[in-house]
């Protein structure tokens, strides 16, 4: 359609800055915008985010829209849907990109159904089909064992993108762009959902998403006690503890430590997987790690297909010796 213009990225902010994933999305959007010879807009919604929004320019956007409103402080599905729908109807982008986050998972389908178009969630690649000028969206299906490439003739094409699938552009503070305050009214009286409270499960120590080393346990840990050893190892390596779904579902570790398709997606320098079989659902959350180290008693376990180094053996015997050698090496 002739009046469609540009690529739009929803950039989330947290702790006073754009999230790492937001900068990855800007790199992804920049590439598509260049391939299509169109502009890249970023949109940040929140409260007290004016300064943060302009950062989107330094990471690749041509125009940084922001909506700074106390009603947008926390994610409210109806508030975010209303404001985003308004901006999309004004800008008429041909592609809308969000992160596969708490917000993206919820907002992307709502927007798609509201705008009578289609969304594809959890994409690992977006590329231009040069002939049709439509975007090809690649998404892992069947537990990541198959990749499916989708497209659609509807507009805009909406996608959420998985963390750690694109490298951010280097921050360039000399980049020029326009900063626009999208000061649209939000009519709270039509809201049906009421946010009562938010309960944060505090995570002790280094944040999982930022840790350079992650020590992770799976079903094979057999219970909460084994995680004490993983904590000891994580402390030694200044890393964080994570888990696959069985330990989280069984309450051996708090749910906020879950890594995988329905949990966090991380890419540390080193991911030490202990008693983790390496189901595709789990690998969706850690396969971008630079080095995966596996300890598992099953030589056929899927985790060894991803690992750089591995030990086949019972972690109860392997791990204590590993930890004590690590201690010795680190102190020498």
């Amino acid at each position, binding site marked *: 359609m002739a009046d469609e213009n540009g690529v739009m990225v929803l950039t989330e902010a947290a702790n006073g800055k754009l999230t790492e994933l937001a900068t990855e999305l800007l790199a992804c959007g920049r590439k598509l915008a260049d391939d299509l010879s169109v502009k890249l807009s970023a949109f940040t919604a929140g409260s007290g985010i004016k300064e943060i929004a302009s950062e989107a320019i330094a990471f690749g956007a041509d125009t940084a829209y922001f909506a700074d409103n106390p009603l947008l402080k926390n994610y409210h599905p109806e508030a975010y849907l209303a404001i985003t729908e308004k901006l999309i109807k004004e800008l008429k982008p041909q592609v809308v990109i969000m992160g596969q986050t708490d917000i993206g998972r919820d907002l992307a389908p709502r927007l798609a159904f509201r705008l009578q178009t289609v969304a594809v969630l959890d994409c690992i690649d977006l590329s231009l089909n040069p002939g049709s000028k439509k975007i090809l969206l690649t998404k*892992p299906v*069947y537990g990541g064992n198959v990749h499916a490439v989708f497209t659609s003739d509807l507009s805009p094409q909406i996608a959420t993108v998985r963390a750690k699938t694109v490298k951010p552009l280097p921050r360039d503070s000399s980049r020029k762009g326009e900063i626009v305050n999208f000061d649209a009214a939000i009519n709270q009286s039509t809201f049906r959902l009421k946010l*009562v409270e938010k309960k944060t499960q505090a995570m002790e120590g280094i944040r999982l998403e930022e840790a350079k080393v992650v020590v992770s346990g799976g079903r094979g840990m057999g219970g909460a006690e084994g995680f004490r050893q993983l904590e000891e190892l994580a402390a030694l390596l200044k890393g964080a503890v994570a888990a696959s779904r069985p330990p989280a*579902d069984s309450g051996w570790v708090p749910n906020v430590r879950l890594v995988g398709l329905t949990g966090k997606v991380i890419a540390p320098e080193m991911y030490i997987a202990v008693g983790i079989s390496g189901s595709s659902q789990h690998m969706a959350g850690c396969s971008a790690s630079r080095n995966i180290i596996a300890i598992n008693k099953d030589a056929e376990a899927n985790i060894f297909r991803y690992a*750089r180094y591995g*030990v086949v053996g019972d972690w109860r015997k392997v791990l*204590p010796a590993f930890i*004590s050698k690590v201690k010795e090496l680190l102190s020498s």
Partner: protein
Amino acid sequence: MNIIVCVKQITDPEVPPTSIKIDAPARRIIPAEGIAAVLSPFDLHAVEAALRIKETSGAKVTILSMGSNLLREVVKKPLAMGADELILLEDSAFADGDSISNAYTLATAVRKIGAYDLILCGRQAADWDFGQTGIGMAEMLGIPCITIARKVAVVDGKAVVERVVADGYEVIETPLPALITVSNELGEPRYPTIKGILASKKIEPVVWKPAEISIDPAKTGAMGRKLLLVNLFQPVRESRCEIIGGETPEEAGANLAVKLREAKLL
């Protein structure tokens, strides 16, 4: 209180990755031989959420499923767990839809069911992981929707929902009727009891064909697809794992530490 739970029959997602094969030219997943069909695990969490409400405040729980070749022993599992009735949208016209056409078909069936207070769905189906059909149904039915719940309670005519987020959870209230999608954090779905299995044998599913729900044939199943699948492929992963050995598991553990040191990872 009337609760509708939507469930989807899929091939068991716990199969070994090597058993999954595709027919790339036809862009189809080939069902692995001998792999059982199951209900998508998140959908069983939705059934569990409905049954917990039934236990505490009383409810009639209706299971709604859609597809072709629905195996009775599979789709009747929620009845054996304690649900009250089963409606099947079973026809080839309903098959091979995308989130849009599936949401349309299910929403059309919900309108025919008529009276409902709560619709529960799994957060996403464990085969294609789209995570959109529930949200789409809510949008089409014009009812509020909360996604990825770890707890659903009905209090004073409202649903109080705990929604899982990365660093904890949010408590959200919604008036009824509403649609909630449920996540595994809700807790393990109950096992069917012998009594439940016997009771479920006596319940015959109600089967609705396209004409019975007055559906627009152009908008359901493959005909209604807006999302085009252009390619399917299996990512190739070559193992480059170096297995570190030793005389004993303890020695292997120590050797691993030495290896990581050599590789400058420690």
